[in-house]
């Protein structure tokens, strides 16, 4: 008895454990979907993190202080008791002005040591050479810019004369400065040096002038070039642009592709230096601007005012990322480091820095979905180009073309799949005998078994070149698909009218198979000569020359085919099940009232199965939106916004598959790809849920029979 109760206890315990396990498994399913959603959100949410000013730091002067704008952290260069004098630096080079002499140092200090704001002895910088200046120099006007081995220096004399020096600072080159002297340089002008293009940009007198500073042979460099301003504006003009309003501050746009100007009314103007044109509308700045500039690798610009007001903005978009007043700022010029990591200001005894927290500047809803007026563009654009820096441009993060491509691929797939799935489901579910249906249905469903990578490969590598050659044939195929059955129907009807001996149940499938094969072979052979005859050569060339329609080898027609094959079986399956499940008695009732078979189908059976039709369509679209391998292999993956069937597209899924393995974890591209995956998830979730609701409605309807 004791033994028995022990057994009973064990059994009861086991029962409880199993019950717990089973319930846990049920909960796990919910947990999984919540986890997926939560994790995608968790990775995406930092994109919405705002911009803020972080901690500030002050570095007291040691001798003289320099700050390098390029590097992530400022650093000081100097030693106690060293000869003082103004120091200005760029990324590679520092220049010291002392007693009418410029000393040029190469900053060959390891980057790592630069990230800590410790004084670096001036001895560690290599003196490249000295330049004797002819007369007193206004210290505030000293500017320099360097790019690779070219160094440009400019300064003004008290009388207003502007001098530009160009020096090759490479180890091999001799230290021989070229000198341009602009005697009557207008007082209210602004200028910027661009070493990479060897240009001087001057804004003044209602014009933006780009003045080339070409290298000349060394002999002529000994004597300085004397230019009057008048002469210069005619002889050395690269491009001239009209400027409205008078400038108050001028600075570079992001990556120096644009020039930014704030006029006296505090309106911002942008000038496209690639296309030599003004860009977009002007927008007002929130305070009197004294300095303006931009980051080098991201589309972020700043303006700063005399009282320490700063604002950050994306020039291609409207609105501000940040407006703030820097605590502890004094009257000097405020600048943003080239990587956007901090604001810096040179104060009388110290260098002051403010950290900037701005990891995801270009991810506002507007910049992700609305057109952006980028540099080097004639109008607002929707572009996806996250690897911009690799191809010598700024990255562009518009998700719109990806979403467009996703829907385009899905809809072209549906164009192919819907008639096929509906037709096949109707015939299999309603007209075929049960015995034949039980064979045909699983066979059609085997289409689902083709791995999409195989369909994509066939479409991209076999069909794509074929399509280019047989475009007319392919465009005629839908026509053939519809007209062959109609012709056969007419033929059968005629035969029956002539002789009633013809069966009213012809072997439709066999006849159609033969007819389709015949029509296909004939049309295939005839199509190329026909194309040559109709369109003088190939149809794609004709489309281009006559209508300007661009033909991509991997295009939407191809996707229609491959995607169509992929989404047909699931739609067919849902629809066929629904049609087959409609009780026979319903259509029998209709037939008994004298309706034809098609009428019974259309008036009685299909309405009963209509929720399934909707459900099938939605599930088909959802499949198409998420399909990856086919679009990856057969779309061409260009993010175009072109609905044409002959053009390429790029879908969200393909973008994720291509770019995510390369994206660095936590970076902006990584998070944006997670965001697009989230969009895909949300879309399919929506479509599937609506489809499920309709399917449940269907079950309810059948419950009544």
């Amino acid at each position, binding site marked *: 008895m004791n033994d028995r109760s022990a057994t009973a206890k064990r*059994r009861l315990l*086991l*029962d409880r454990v*199993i019950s717990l396990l089973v319930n846990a*498994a*049920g*909960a*796990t*399913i*919910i947990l*999984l979907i919540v986890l997926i959603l939560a*994790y995608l959100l968790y990775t995406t949410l930092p994109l919405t993190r705002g911009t803020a000013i972080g901690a500030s730091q002050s570095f007291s002067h040691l001798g003289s202080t320099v700050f390098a704008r390029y590097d992530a952290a400022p650093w000081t260069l100097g030693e106690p008791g060293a000869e003082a004098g103004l120091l200005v630096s760029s990324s590679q080079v520092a220049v010291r002005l002392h007693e009418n002499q410029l000393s040029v140092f190469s900053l060959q200090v390891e980057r790592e040591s630069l990230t800590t704001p410790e004084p670096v002895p001036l001895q560690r910088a290599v003196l490249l050479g000295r330049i004797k200046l002819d007369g007193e120099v206004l210290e505030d006007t000293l500017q320099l810019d360097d790019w690779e081995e070219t160094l440009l220096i400019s300064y003004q004399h008290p009388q207003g004369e502007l001098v530009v020096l160009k020096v090759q600072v490479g180890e091999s080159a001799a230290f021989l400065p070229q000198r341009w002297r602009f005697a009557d340089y207008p007082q209210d002008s602004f200028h910027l040096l661009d070493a990479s293009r060897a240009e001087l940009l001057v804004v003044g007198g209602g014009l933006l002038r780009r003045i080339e500073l070409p290298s000349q042979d060394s002999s002529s460099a000994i004597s300085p070039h004397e230019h009057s301003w008048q002469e210069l504006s005619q002889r050395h003009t690269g491009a001239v642009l009209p400027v409205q309003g008078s400038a108050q501050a001028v600075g570079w746009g992001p990556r120096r592709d644009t020039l930014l100007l704030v006029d006296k009314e505090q309106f911002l103007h942008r000038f496209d230096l690639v296309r030599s044109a003004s860009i977009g509308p002007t927008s007002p700045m929130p305070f009197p601007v004294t300095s303006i500039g931009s980051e080098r690798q991201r589309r972020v610009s700043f303006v700063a005012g005399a009282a320490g007001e700063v604002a950050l903005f994306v020039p291609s978009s409207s609105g501000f990322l940040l407006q703030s007043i820097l605590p502890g700022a004094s009257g000097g010029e405020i600048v943003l480091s080239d990587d956007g990591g901090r604001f810096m200001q040179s104060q009388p005894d110290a260098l002051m820095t403010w950290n900037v927290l701005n990891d995801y500047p270009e991810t506002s809803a507007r910049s992700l979905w609305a057109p952006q007026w980028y540099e080097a563009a004639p109008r607002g654009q929707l572009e996806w180009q996250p690897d911009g820096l690799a191809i010598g441009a700024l990255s562009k993060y518009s998700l719109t073309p990806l979403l467009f491509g996703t829907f385009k691929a899905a809809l072209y797939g549906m164009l192919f799949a819907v008639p096929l799935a*509906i*037709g*096949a489901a*109707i*015939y*299999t579910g309603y007209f075929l005998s049960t015995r034949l249906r039980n064979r*045909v249905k699983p066979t*059609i469903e*085997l*289409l*689902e*078994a083709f*791995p*999409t*990578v*195989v369909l994509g490969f*066939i479409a*991209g590598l076999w069909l794509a070149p074929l399509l280019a050659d047989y475009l007319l044939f392919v465009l005629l195929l839908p026509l053939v*698909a519809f007209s062959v*059955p*109609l012709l056969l*129907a007419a033929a*059968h009807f005629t035969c029956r*009218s002539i002789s009633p001996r013809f069966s009213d149940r012809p072997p*439709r*499938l066999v006849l159609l198979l033969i007819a*389709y094969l015949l029509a296909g072979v004939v049309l295939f052979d005839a199509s*190329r000569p026909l194309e040559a005859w109709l369109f003088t050569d190939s149809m794609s060339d004709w489309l281009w020359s006559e209508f300007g329609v661009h033909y991509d080898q991997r295009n939407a027609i191809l996707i229609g085919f491959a995607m169509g*094959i992929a989404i047909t079986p699931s739609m*067919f399956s849902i629809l066929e099940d629904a049609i087959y499940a409609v009780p026979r008695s319903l259509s029998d009732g209709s037939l008994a009232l004298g309706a034809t*078979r098609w009428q019974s189908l259309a008036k009685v059976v299909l309405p009963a199965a209509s929720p399934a039709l909707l459900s099938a369509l939605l*599930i088909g679209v*959802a499949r198409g939106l*998420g*399909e*990856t*391998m086919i679009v*990856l292999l057969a779309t061409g993956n260009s993010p175009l916004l072109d609905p044409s069937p002959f053009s390429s597209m790029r879908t969200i899924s393909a973008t*994720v*598959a291509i770019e995510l*393995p390369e994206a660095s*974890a936590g970076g902006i591209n990584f998070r944006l790809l*997670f965001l697009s*995956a989230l969009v*895909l998830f949300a879309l*399919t*979730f929506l479509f*599937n849920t609506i489809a499920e609701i309709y399917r449940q409605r269907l079950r309810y309807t059948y419950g009544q029979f």
Partner: protein
Amino acid sequence: MASSRSAELKTAPLLAGARRAEPLVWASAGAVVLALLLLAAVLLLLASNSFRYFWPQPLVYLESDQLGPSGSLGIVLGRDTGRRAQNAQLLLLRGAEEFFQSPIIWLDEDRIRSRQQPKDAFAVERADRGMVFGFIEALTVIGEQRVLSNGSPSQVLNAVQNAREEVSRLSIETREASFYSIRLANGQLVDLPLADVVSVHLPNSMNRVEKLNHFAAGVWRFLSEAPRQTNVQGGVLPAIVGTVTLVLLMAIIVAPLGVLAAVYLSEYAQSGILTRLVRIAVNNLAGVPSIVYGVFGLGFFVYAVGGSIDSVFFADKLPAPTLGTPGLLWAALTMAILTLPVVIVATEEGLARVPKNLREGSLALGATRAETLWRVVLPSAAPAVLTGLILAIARATGEVAPLILVGVAKYAPGLPVSGEFPFVHFDRQFMHLGFYIYDLGFQSPQIDTVEGLVYATALLLVGIVLLLNVAAVVLRGRLREAFAGEEIFR
């Protein structure tokens, strides 16, 4: 009255006649035929191209104005008819890529002067750098020359094959002194290493049996060898092993969870909000695009979970990741989530088909719910569970998109299973048939030369998936028959 009625029946108006012709019935039947045609066409395309890849193709010697005085020897890969007759072109694979600018060449048909199939033309498949076509004239084995110019082609073939066998047994140093001299179509005589020869044959003088042998040997090498020469040659064994290991590991993970969840829905769930939520979750899991699972797998499994494991257990190896990088385990887990709904739906269907009175019979005998489940319900639903697993495996075998993100590799030096501890290497990247197709088809600079290999791989993959699907259909049919006519629970 009666007579007028019958008259009505006979004089059908034209519209009614058109209706009776049932054009739309024909059209819908057309859709069935088209769907079946598509299935057949895809299979036929794969099968015929794979066959062409393995079956010895005749070597054609072509002389053309395009080529200058000497001709070209090779396999005709394809023909482009052009829009007008004079535009027709042939695509010739002439191999020996180190001696010609390109291993393939397009030749205008109307400029071809002569075309013949020389009986003594050899096709040599090399381990490195593709095929060579030409006429073997001499052999040098370990520095000793064997002139063959007076032998018949088949004697030469034998000599080369024997020499190849001999050389394969030699040490690496002595192999270098063994080569064959082959005259290319452009008249150049080149010495190539014997050790590099994978197979050699005389396609133009083979009989059916020899061709069949060659075909079988080719298929066997395809299935049993590793890829060579950055994947464009050789076999797909590592990809097969990778795919199989992945899906088996996935099946082990997904089976218990999927079956338990189905049991929950079918046996334990009370109708309530929780059950409704589970159903919505299952439906949505089934509808989530596979690439989203990949994104989730990469972010959650690889970076979050794998990264945490690394920082706790493999901290000494950091920053080099151990599990915090795409690999077999994460791929299997991701695939398990992806295929979970497949297992749940199939199992639930099977459970629903187990008659209610079997459960009652067991419970009435004093069995607990767990005992009823284990001893009566699950054994009866076993074919359904198996069906679900097979379908899940089929789905996972054909799925590539998530793998791109969570663990598949273009070329993995080590197999995911091996004889050394721990036998299954969860952290390794692996090769996969589907990804192999994607990679070959899209990353190869010369797609025309690898097309055959891609087709063969695609056929293999489709074959496996199709077979699994057919097995599932048959099994499901069996289950339906077993309980046909029984009172269905629910």
